[in-house]
């Protein structure tokens, strides 16, 4: 009982502030919310998908680089042109603060109608905040589960889904071809069957690593403290180490997802290999050294690194950097294994216009409508776009600036044919498990612990968090 009155009292107090504030500072400038700016002069024609002619306004939150922001806004315009009765109020929120800002909106009953989303969406699904995509799909024959990549689903239960990837990205090896030429080294292979074995990869990286005096790591007098050009920059997140762990036969979780897999020998061996690039072979920057290396495209352009293993979204920046760049397949330990990853569009239960939100989510998820983004930043999530030559040509043509020579083999086919589920949408409770793993791995990259030691410690911490998998 007291619970309730406490809250009411607080509400009254807050109302009092507002009343006072309004009287105190009269025309207090532009500090009110975004809400009321209904642009109301297009006559509703009520066609294309939306049932009623009534005016509808959707609030949509998203993140992304300036280019992505622009492309998404263009797509929104196109959607609005096709559906004149719908206006999209798009709110761009920087990725680093996204979840926190979204939480704030939800707490304030200001949740958007739909939103970009990352792994945290599954918790929102469990809490009943968002629509089950499978329910929405039932009434719409245009969306079929089997059209999508096998693992492109964000499900929080067997029959409950936060939707398929809205678009995909993959782990990718990118390089500056000029640096290979200067070192007289052959370019990275582009076919999965010909992928570098780990030792070949290390040897190549050594040839591409130069200290201040132009010496390579195996040369006498090499100065590992003053490296001018690193052979490779390995992004040190699960995005980059998981393909190698999978390649070695390990996995994030094992035993039907009931046991922590990263502490097993297959996984720690792979992780240790990456750490050795830094601390033994001196061909890759440590987290410390990486702090003075810019984002991948700039790093390749400014010759700070010769190769980068990071997300394929960097292709867009690379295409704008005007350098002689290329892509190769990832190095392997045993089999070639990798994964697609991506976000999905979630529709909030609080929306008053689920139908229009659904139409918009379909629109934005259809590669055709955001084709420009699929020619550099993203990759499609629909199987057909990997199989139908005409469709493939529309986004993966190697004449496109964002698609260098070898792209179809090195990025598209190698991933499409060797895809496993990404840990992010497969593992339950991934956000919290990964927080502990990432903290533990800090020590491995810094060379203060071996991968086996660090993961053993992490295992104890994450044990209570492990709750199985969603997809496989």
């Amino acid at each position, binding site marked *: 009982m007291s619970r309730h009155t406490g809250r009411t009292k*607080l*509400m009254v*107090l*807050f*109302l009092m*502030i*507002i009343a*006072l*504030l309004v009287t*105190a*500072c009269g025309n*207090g*400038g*532009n*500090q*009110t*919310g*975004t809400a009321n700016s209904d642009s109301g002069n297009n006559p509703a024609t009520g066609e294309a998908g939306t049932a009623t002619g009534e005016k509808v306004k959707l609030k949509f939150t998203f993140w992304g*680089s*300036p280019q992505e922001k622009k492309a998404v806004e263009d797509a929104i315009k196109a959607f609005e042109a096709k559906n004149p009765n719908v206006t999209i109020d798009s*709110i*761009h*929120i*920087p*990725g*680093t*603060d996204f979840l926190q*800002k*979204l939480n*704030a*909106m939800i*707490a*304030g*009953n*200001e949740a958007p109608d739909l939103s970009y989303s990352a792994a945290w969406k599954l918790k929102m699904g469990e809490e009943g905040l968002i629509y089950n995509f499978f329910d929405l799909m039932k009434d719409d024959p245009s969306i079929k589960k089997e059209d999508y990549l096998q693992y492109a689903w964000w499900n929080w239960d067997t029959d409950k889904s936060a939707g398929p990837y809205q678009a995909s990205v993959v782990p990718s090896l990118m390089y500056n071809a000029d640096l290979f030429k200067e070192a007289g080294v052959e370019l990275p292979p582009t076919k999965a069957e010909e992928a570098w074995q780990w030792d070949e990869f290390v040897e190549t990286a050594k040839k591409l690593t130069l200290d*201040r005096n132009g010496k390579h790591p195996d040369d006498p007098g090499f100065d590992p403290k*003053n490296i001018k050009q690193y052979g490779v920059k390995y992004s040190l997140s699960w995005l980059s180490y998981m393909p190698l762990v999978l390649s070695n036969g390990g996995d994030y979780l094992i035993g039907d997802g009931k046991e922590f897999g990263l502490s097993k020998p297959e996984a720690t061996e792979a992780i240790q290999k990456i750490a050795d690039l830094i601390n033994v072979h001196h061909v890759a920057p440590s987290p410390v050294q*990486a*702090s*003075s*290396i*810019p*984002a991948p495209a*700039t790093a390749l352009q*400014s010759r700070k690194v010769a190769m980068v293993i990071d997300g394929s979204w960097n292709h867009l920046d690379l295409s704008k950097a005007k350098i002689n760049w290329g892509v190769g397949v990832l190095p392997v330990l045993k089999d070639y294994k990798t994964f697609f990853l991506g976000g999905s569009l979630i529709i909030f239960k609080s929306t008053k216009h689920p139908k229009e939100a659904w139409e918009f989510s379909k629109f934005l998820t259809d590669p055709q409508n955001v084709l420009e983004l699929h020619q550099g930043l993203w990759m499609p999530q629909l199987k057909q776009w990997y199989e139908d030559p005409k469709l493939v040509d529309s986004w993966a043509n190697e004449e496109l600036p964002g698609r260098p020579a070898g792209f179809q083999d090195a990025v598209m086919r190698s991933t499409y044919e060797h895809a496993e589920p990404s840990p992010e949408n497969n593992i339950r409770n991934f956000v919290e498990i990964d927080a502990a793993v990432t903290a533990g791995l800090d020590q491995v990259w810094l060379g203060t612990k071996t991968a086996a030691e660090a993961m053993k410690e992490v295992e104890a911490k994450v044990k209570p968090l492990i709750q199985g998998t969603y997809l496989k």
Partner: protein
Amino acid sequence: MRTKAWVEKGLVYLVLMAGGLFSLLPLIWLIRSSLMDMGQIFELPPIWIPNPFRFSNFSEALTILPFGRYFINTTVIVIFSMIGVLVTCSISAYSFARMSWRGRDLIFGLLLSSMMLPYAVTLIPTFIGWSKLGLTNSFIPLIAPAWFGGGAFNIFLLRQFYLSIPRDLDEAAYVDGASHGRIFISIIIPLTRPALVVVGLFTFLASWNDFLGPLVYLNDESKYTLALGLQQFKGMYAAEWHLMMAAATVVLAPAIIVFFIGQRYFIEGITLTGIKA
């Protein structure tokens, strides 16, 4: 004896110089880095004077993100906070200094002890309160507290000033039948203008420099303040130190300018804080 005094004096200056260097070097390094290109910045051993001076870093940093928008947002918040604090703090402080009413000392004691309360304790409930009112993602949560006494510290400071004004002045007016409002406006305010400047300056700085408040309350990028904009910059241009330093300089410059304009008041204000705490 003379030489001993000399050595001692020299030592004093040496320590002071070292301290001064420690204070200034980071700022010099900031400005130096903000005027270089990436090549110069990575040079070892480091060069001190940029050659050539690259002022384009500023225009580049300022165009990447809508810093103009952030500047306006920050200014709006700062100005409304300052007005709020000046109006409500001075009135309340007057009451605590010059009027007598039951419970006054208790309330003042509570106010003083609230200075020791960690903001983290009230952060979450206040946030939830604002969000239930649908006022997050607006400037109101950042400005409103200023209109309610704006923090015990300012009231405390002004009260100290008011107490230092001889009572004869307002007592004479009081006996002549002037109301408290009249006394406050025509006697106390003119006499304590410097104090109001001090409070205004402190409020400016606190509001300009605030990071957690905007971080918690502002969602939409178009409502961001400079501090949030700078943080965003870090995510996008990691390791491009020349641009990061240029952006940081832009955020810092107004604070420094205001400091130099009101320097005398600042020192005075801080001095008052420590006395009779």
